């Protein structure tokens, strides 16, 4: 009951603060631009000759990952900067005083905030991602092998990042928590790319950088799973499985990794609850 009240309040805040409208406008612009870009692919004159529709679909499957990365970035940054002010900001401003003096458990308030942010982030990723897939299908006729799994993994990536941002905002200032969360997200992605290059070069030490960072913060691992679900399997054959190309993933996610991601979110949420419970307001 309290959890749902707070979740609803968090969603209402996102709507009233015009976050939703700003994101919607940004997304519509991105969709329009990508639609125009994809339409230029067919019949594009390259040094190797004109792209056929088959080749265009292949390139589209690569580009779709690039654009989806853009969406995941928007969702990640958006939720991280929403999650920061939601705990630390309300404590700093004094908004939390009146709410937490009510007969509510702090863990319920936290769970409500998390649920609200999760609905917002996942809703955005699912809708914007689906719209993008439809635009690509309409323009170049490419439809990914498992779109639902891909969108779900993108949403999971958002959940991981917002959970991290909540943990940080229970301990440090709102702005710092947003910056650190997005910074870690970027660092893990770069570590993943470095690991991919290590793999391509056959350097195990460098490859391990990617594997370790994917365990510490599952955003990059989930993102790779999402890419694998969006990309044309033919692209992987053409580019080579060990290509180290940052917008192709060579294997789908293992159930063990998914289980780890779920456990990671649960543990971080538990730590946040503990830290928030002990905090003087």
């Amino acid at each position, binding site marked *: *009951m*309290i959890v749902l*009240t707070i979740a609803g*309040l968090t969603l*209402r*805040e996102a709507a*009233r*603060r015009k976050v939703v409208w700003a994101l919607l406008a940004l997304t519509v612009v991105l969709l329009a631009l990508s639609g125009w870009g994809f339409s230029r692919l067919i019949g594009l004159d390259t040094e190797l000759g004109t792209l056929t529709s088959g080749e265009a679909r292949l390139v589209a499957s690569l580009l779709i990952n690039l654009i989806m990365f853009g969406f995941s970035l928007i969702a990640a940054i958006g939720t991280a900067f929403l999650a920061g002010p939601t705990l630390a900001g309300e404590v700093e*401003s*004094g*908004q939390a*005083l*009146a*709410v*937490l*003096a*009510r*007969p*509510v*458990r702090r863990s319920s308030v936290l769970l409500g905030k998390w649920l609200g942010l999760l609905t917002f982030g996942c809703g955005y990723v699912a809708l914007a991602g689906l719209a993008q897939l439809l635009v690509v299908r309409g323009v170049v006729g490419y439809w990914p092998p498992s779109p639902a799994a891909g969108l779900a993994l993108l949403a999971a990536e958002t959940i991981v990042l917002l959970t991290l941002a909540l943990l940080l905002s229970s301990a440090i200032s709102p702005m710092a928590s947003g910056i650190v969360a997005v910074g870690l997200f970027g660092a893990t992605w770069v570590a993943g790319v470095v690991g991919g290059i290590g793999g391509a070069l056959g350097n195990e030490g460098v490859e391990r950088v990617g594997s370790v960072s994917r365990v510490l913060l599952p955003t990059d691992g989930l993102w790779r799973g999402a890419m694998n679900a969006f990309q044309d399997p033919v692209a992987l054959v053409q580019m080579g499985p060990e290509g180290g190309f940052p917008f192709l993933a060579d294997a789908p996610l293992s159930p063990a990794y998914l289980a780890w991601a779920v456990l990671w979110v649960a543990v971080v949420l538990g730590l946040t609850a503990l830290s928030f419970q*002990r905090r*003087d*307001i």
Partner: protein
Amino acid sequence: MATGTTAAGTAGGVLGDLPPSPAVWCSGLRKRYGRRTAVDDVSFSVGRGEVVGLLGPNGAGKTSVIKMLLGLVRPDAGEVLLLGRPSSDPRSRSAVGYLPELFRYQPWLTASEVLDLHVRLSRADVPAEERRECLALVGLAERTGDRVGGFSKGMQQRLGLAVALVARPELVVLDEPTSALDPLGRVDVRDIVLSLRARGVAVLLNSHLIGEVERVCDRVVILDRGRVAASGTLTELLGQHEVRLRLGEVGPQVEERLRATGTLTRSGDWFTVALAAEDDGVTVPDLVRDLVGLGVHVHAVEPVRISLEERLLAVLRHEEAAP
């Protein structure tokens, strides 16, 4: 200090057939922030329907005590019971209304939405009409549909007062409730506190406006440097009074007679003598008779009642022992 009766009251809550437990009971509260001790061994209670004022200078620990009572700050030591339940139990705050010193409400909600939210959070069943009345009581009847973001500080404090009152509280904690209000608003707050007392609602009032506290409070707890410096009913605290005399031709013998009555202070030909709390009614007439007998010209004799402000300043300056 009502610790003895309080303990009995707590047991009463359990037994059911005894009087209900006090609205607030706290014992041995301690809080340190780093190396600074903010609250040190604070114990007091607020009975049902009683209005208790919390007084003290800036940094005395008043807000820290209030936050510990409400479970917002974890005490390093000590116990708190709110309406008979330990403060670690969220249900202890079911019938508690709180206006924080730092009053901020969701700026993107309207005034009535803020009230709706707090009614839901406190799981109270308050009809919409009653919520509107609550906003009208604090003078926001015309602004129910306006966003809080557009409110002035005074209006936000009024809204905070409505939030504290909306869920039919049995205990209301007001931390500096008039800090942003105009003189009219202060009178409104005083009337609200008096009407709460009339309805049997307990009020813990932290205010710098000693005059307000003196007008509405049954009892006062004075905090200084994190400790209870004095506490008691207003009669207990203000029982001590003085007599001011304007005398002519005062010699050493006369001064000695004045000192024998109580602590003496002199300003020109005005002499102020502090009198014992338990006055037998003959101290002043006897003094005047003796002064006349000593050949002093007695021009004026005025009884002076000590105000709460003077008492507070005396306690804080350690000019007298705390009762």
